[in-house]
């Protein structure tokens, strides 16, 4: 397959169109605006619907309406805009509607910066909206993965009737890279016989709703959602390991820092230091078991979590997986400042020194 | 004219709106009855005067009134 040079955000939009996205509702915000721009120009030509909404709140509720009416619906935004979408995401999860949400993350809090960031990990994996719900969160670390995951996200969303988020730092959205358009795995999907498409010959009305006034009914609904999340945890966990088989120090990182870490590992290995990379691909469900297995390995002495965040957020999940078996160190920057190869090398060496 | 007005009295909330629109003033609250909701339901006091205009039914917020004519 021939390689093509694509900008991340535009590639994501094109990927969605190729995945059969019926409609896109979006609002401008840096650094994701190329997604709605591309969609406005290309989705209608492919027979789809594009609406620029008055706000992120409206966009996610347009997604709710269209998804509830059986459409493959999508929206994208960047961190502060994703905050605004949380209300709708909670309703979409509660009403069990499939949709794809892309967060091209920038730094925060508040307006923060338009530079890349990873400060929305909690928001994505814990749910920024109200109630007990989860969104499946895919995190690409390059444009090719972004393209592949966005296409898969529609099928995953449809299979579970649940929102799927593709979360990437703004660097991936803004970066141009060569990619290949190849087939992504397709799933067997049930017909959307629950959608509000007009009753016509049906003997019942279809209702899209997240309200359950009867306590026991609401309890049952939440149990049903919990079962679904358990199924996702069982079936959908993804991660990648690089040089972890004999690693004494394991760097945990996702997105762009994971890419930088690959160079750091090469450098460290060339100096004879056994360092590997554990990269969660699904941030939720987090690859807890796989990481715990590493934590239990005798050869692993320490972990270094690296994020584009000053406090670290994924580090909580790393610690939960490691369960205190090995020390977990942290390296991170916010504001668009990238953790460098040199810093990672130094952090890994320091971690190793402490345990030797 | 022979008319028939049927009230689904169990669902009546006794709001009295129907009593205000009857041109013959034959729709009233039946103070002798308490329905399962605890309200005095509406009824027709003299069906022979009913002209089957269905005004009572049209204004009934709970759609509990059916009007028929022969």
């Amino acid at each position, binding site marked *: 397959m021939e390689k093509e040079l694509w900008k991340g955000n535009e590639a994501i939009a094109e990927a969605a169109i190729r995945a059969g996205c019926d409609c896109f509702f979006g609002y401008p915000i840096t650094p994701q605006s190329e997604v709605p721009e591309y969609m406005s120009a290309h989705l209608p030509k492919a027979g789809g619907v594009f609406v620029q909404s008055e706000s992120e709140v409206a966009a996610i509720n347009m997604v709710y*309406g269209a*998804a509830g*009416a059986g459409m493959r619906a999508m929206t994208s935004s960047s961190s502060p805009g994703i905050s605004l979408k949380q209300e709708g995401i909670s309703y979409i999860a509660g009403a069990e509607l499939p949709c794809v949400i892309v967060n091209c993350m920038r730094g925060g809090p508040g307006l923060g910066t338009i530079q890349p960031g990873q400060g929305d990990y909690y928001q994505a994996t814990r749910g920024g909206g109200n109630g007990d719900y989860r969104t499946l969160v895919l995190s690409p670390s390059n444009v090719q993965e972004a393209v592949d995951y966005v296409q898969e996200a529609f099928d995953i969303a449809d299979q579970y009737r649940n929102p799927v988020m593709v979360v990437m730092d703004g660097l991936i959205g803004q970066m141009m890279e060569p990619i290949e358009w190849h087939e992504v795995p397709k799933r067997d999907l049930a017909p959307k016989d629950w959608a509000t498409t007009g009753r016509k010959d049906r003997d019942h009305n279809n209702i899209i709703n997240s309200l359950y006034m009867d306590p026991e009914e609401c309890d049952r609904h939440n149990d049903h959602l919990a079962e679904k999340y358990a199924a996702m945890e069982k079936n959908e966990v993804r991660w990648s390991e690089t040089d972890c088989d004999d690693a004494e120090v394991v760097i945990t990182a996702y997105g762009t820092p994971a890419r930088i870490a690959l160079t750091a590992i090469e450098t460290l290995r060339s100096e004879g230091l056994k360092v590997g990379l554990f990269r969660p691909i699904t941030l939720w469900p987090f690859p807890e078991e796989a990481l715990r297995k590493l934590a239990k390995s005798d050869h692993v002495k320490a972990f270094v979590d690296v994020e584009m965040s000053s406090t670290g957020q994924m580090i909580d999940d790393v610690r939960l997986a490691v369960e205190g078996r090995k020390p977990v160190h942290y390296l991170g920057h916010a504001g668009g400042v990238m953790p460098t190869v040199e810093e990672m090398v130094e952090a890994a060496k320091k971690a190793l020194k402490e345990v030797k | 004219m022979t008319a028939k007005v049927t009230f689904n009295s169990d669902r009546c909330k006794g709001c009295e709106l129907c009593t205000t*629109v009857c041109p013959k003033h034959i729709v009233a609250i039946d103070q002798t009855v308490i329905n399962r909701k605890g309200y005095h339901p509406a009824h027709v006091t003299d069906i022979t005067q009913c002209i089957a205009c269905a*005004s009572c*039914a*049209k204004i009934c*917020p709970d759609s509990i009134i059916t*009007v028929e004519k022969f």
Partner: protein
Amino acid sequence: MAIVYEKSKGLTDVELHYCPGCNHGIIHKLVAESLVELGLLDDAIGVCPVGCSVFAYKYFNCDMQEAAHGRAPAVATGIKRTHPHQAVFTYQGDGDLASIGAAEIVHAAMRGEKFTTIFVNNAIYGMTGGQMAPTTLIGQKATTCQTGRTKEQAGMPIRMAEMLSTLDGCVYAERVCVTDIANINKAKKAIKKAFQKQMNGEGFTFIEVLSTCPTNWGMTPLKAVDWLKDNMIPYYPLGVIKEVAPENAEVK
């Protein structure tokens, strides 16, 4: 024996939860009857709000979506844009539409979204317990303005039909009430016309229905009707606020 009037097939058999004398039930059936009479029921997709009519999805006998507070026009936009040949409506109260959902309704009207909004204005928040709404009248008591709304503290009440009429995308806005048979007939005519204009693809259509809230106004249903006539209609005048002739509407 001929049936002169019976419960509309456009409503389910579920018992309404509304308080005695609440006008929601009357407005529900006018919408339901309109959909049936226009042959649109099987094609209809309704969107209900948060507020007293939050359970409208149980009452309308068609496909329904329950929206977040104020977001019904955005939800309806998502539905109608992807299902342009179906009858789509939102059913919203004044807290929902004129307060938290003010942006969504304004922009749906601005875009000329081809759905119909039934706006039930009872000048108060009903379900949450009678708090002041943007539509609460000056001097009217509510649980968050216990000595009556003042202009100084809360500004003047908002007239949504007039406001939306300034937008080109809004092709039809009428204010009606359901206090008596003549007004009920007018209200139904307006609702039917709105759906017809929607199905003709003329643009955004908006019917504001003044409604009583006996419980939160602290009145009997009959006193509430009088209060509506004496206080609401002078500030919220009935009638067609805007109607663009079909030949001038941008039919697509």
